[in-house]
Every structure is written in structure tokens, then in C-alpha cells.
């Protein structure tokens, strides 16, 4: 399995900066109506535009759309190793540092997006409470089935020197 080829940072003497430019092969990410509803339920958002086709059709957008952070779920849909594994991070000590989205076009239920990801930043920093912290930024670009760029997202993953207490 590909999973076993991924080395953890300890086994891997490669400097963290060498991760920059590493690409994750493009893959298809279908935007499913049922998953949109489930996601909206999970964030407690009762907006009918995430659920009711009749309602959505009458809005200026004209259809059921995905909530702003829905596309983050691509990392769990994607085949192959996880972001943690790709960067060789220990998931017990990984925190989600930041997340950034730039929206170009609405994303509709039924769209088939293509997602391309690369690592754009990777660096180490001394943590405030001692221990090295590793920062890795994954940038993903999403295009829809018509080839239109719909979204760019940037996700910052941090590996702490140990468990963070707050």
C-alpha cells in the first residue's frame, strides 16, 4: 500500500523546507446534495438553500449551494495518504492552525470539482512554551466541470512539540 511508503519525520532526515512544492495528484470531488444537507445540519445552519431545491431555484443563485467551508471535506474524500502522512507529521500532536478561502463562483449540488493541491509553505519555529513547531501550508485550487475556477483554499497545519494545554 502507498500508505506504508510514507515516512514519519523522525525516520526522515529531509529538511522540512523540502516539502515546499510537493503536489498531491488532482482528483475529482463530487458535490453531493445529501452531504451538503448533512454538513449544514452538523454546523447547525438551517438555511433552506442547503436543502430545498424549490426554494433554492427561486433565489438569485438558482440552486442548492455548498456552505463556505464544505470543500474542506475534500481532504477526507481524497484517495491516498492524508495531509499528515504526506508531511510526515505525528497526528497526536497536530493542530489545525488556520484556514483561508477565496471564492470565485458558487459551488452547486451536482457539481464535479477537480481539486489540485500543493504545499506552498513549510517551516519550523520555536514554540512559546519550548519545543519545535512545524508549520505546513496546503493550497488547493478547485475547478468545476465547466473548467471554471471556483475556489482557492489554504490550510495551515501545525505540529507542536507536545500536547498543547489550551
Amino acid at each position, binding site marked *: 500500500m502507498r500508505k506504508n511508503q510514507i515516512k514519519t519525520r523522525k525516520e526522515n532526515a529531509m529538511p522540512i523546507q523540502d516539502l515546499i512544492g510537493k503536489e498531491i495528484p488532482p482528483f475529482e470531488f463530487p458535490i453531493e446534495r445529501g452531504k451538503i444537507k*448533512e454538513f449544514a445540519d452538523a454546523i*447547525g445552519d438551517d*438555511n433552506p438553500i442547503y436543502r430545498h431545491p424549490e426554494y433554492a431555484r427561486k*433565489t438569485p443563485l438558482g440552486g442548492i449551494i455548498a456552505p*463556505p467551508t464544505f470543500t474542506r471535506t475534500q481532504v*477526507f474524500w481524497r484517495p491516498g495518504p492524508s495531509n499528515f502522512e504526506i508531511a510526515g507529521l505525528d497526528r*497526536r500532536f497536530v493542530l489545525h492552525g488556520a484556514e483561508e478561502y477565496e471564492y470565485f463562483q*458558487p459551488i452547486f449540488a451536482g457539481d464535479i470539482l477537480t481539486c489540485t493541491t500543493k504545499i506552498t509553505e513549510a517551516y519550523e519555529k520555536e514554540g512559546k512554551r519550548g519545543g519545535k513547531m512545524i508549520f505546513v501550508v496546503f493550497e488547493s485550487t478547485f475547478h468545476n466541470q465547466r473548467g471554471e475556477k471556483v475556489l482557492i483554499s489554504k490550510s495551515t497545519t501545525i505540529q507542536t512539540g507536545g500536547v498543547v494545554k489550551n
Partner: protein
Amino acid sequence: MEKKGLYFEDVREGDEAPPVVVANVSRTQIVKYAGASGDFNPIHHDELYAIRAGNDRVFAMGMMTAGFLSHMVTDWVGDGNLRKYKVRFATRVWPGDTVTCKGKITRKYKKDGKNCIEADVFAEKQNLEKAVIGTIIAELPGKTASGAH
């Protein structure tokens, strides 16, 4: 119940968003988000795993709180109007926490003929610690541009 959002003419710098409150975050809610998102990192649902990794108990995914915050934002600025959403995760949300999502317009401007606002947004816990802190840019419809006048 039509969700109207804001008109550019009606907003001013300093205006605040109607807050969205998520009371008493539960483990069930965390599991629901795990299922909806596919995030099955056991640190968020397996108490023993979370404790063995040095935590007191399980804690919510940052993206779940970012989702609560985005709900406040889209109810405020209107569906399809968000252009940028940027957040950082400052402290964690634990089962039992109550999260209040707030926003305030920091800048109103026109750019390339578009009606834009920028706002500071954050998700705050009952002890006033901010769990998620961010900024947004939204493009608002204008009353005149819509042909209403």
C-alpha cells in the same frame, strides 16, 4: 422565509452582525460533524485516545467552529456574497462550551464597480476566550444596481 442579507447602501463601518449562539456543544454534535465531514481523527471522538495523547477529554474540530462562524457570516451578508473567509484557530472548544459567533464591519468601499465590505469575525466561548478569529470580504448587492429604483 426568504434570506435577504444586506444591501450596500444600508451598512456602515462599525455595524455589528446578529450573533449566532451554539449552546453547550455536545459529543454527539462533534460525532455528527465527524460523519458529515469525514474527519474521523479519534482525538475528536475517542475519549481514551484523546486522554492517552495527553488531553483531558475529546475536543471539537476547529473546522466545526469555523462552520458555526460561517453560518453567522452567510446569514449576515447573504448567500453567495462571501468572497474571502480567513480564520485562525486560537483555542479549542470542549464539550459543554457555548460558542457565540460575532462580526463587525471594519471597511466599506467600492472596488472595480463592486460593493465590498470587510469585517472582523470571531467565535467566542462563555469565558470570553476567542476560539476562532478571522476576517471576511463580501460583495453586497446595491439597491440601485438591482433595478429596484
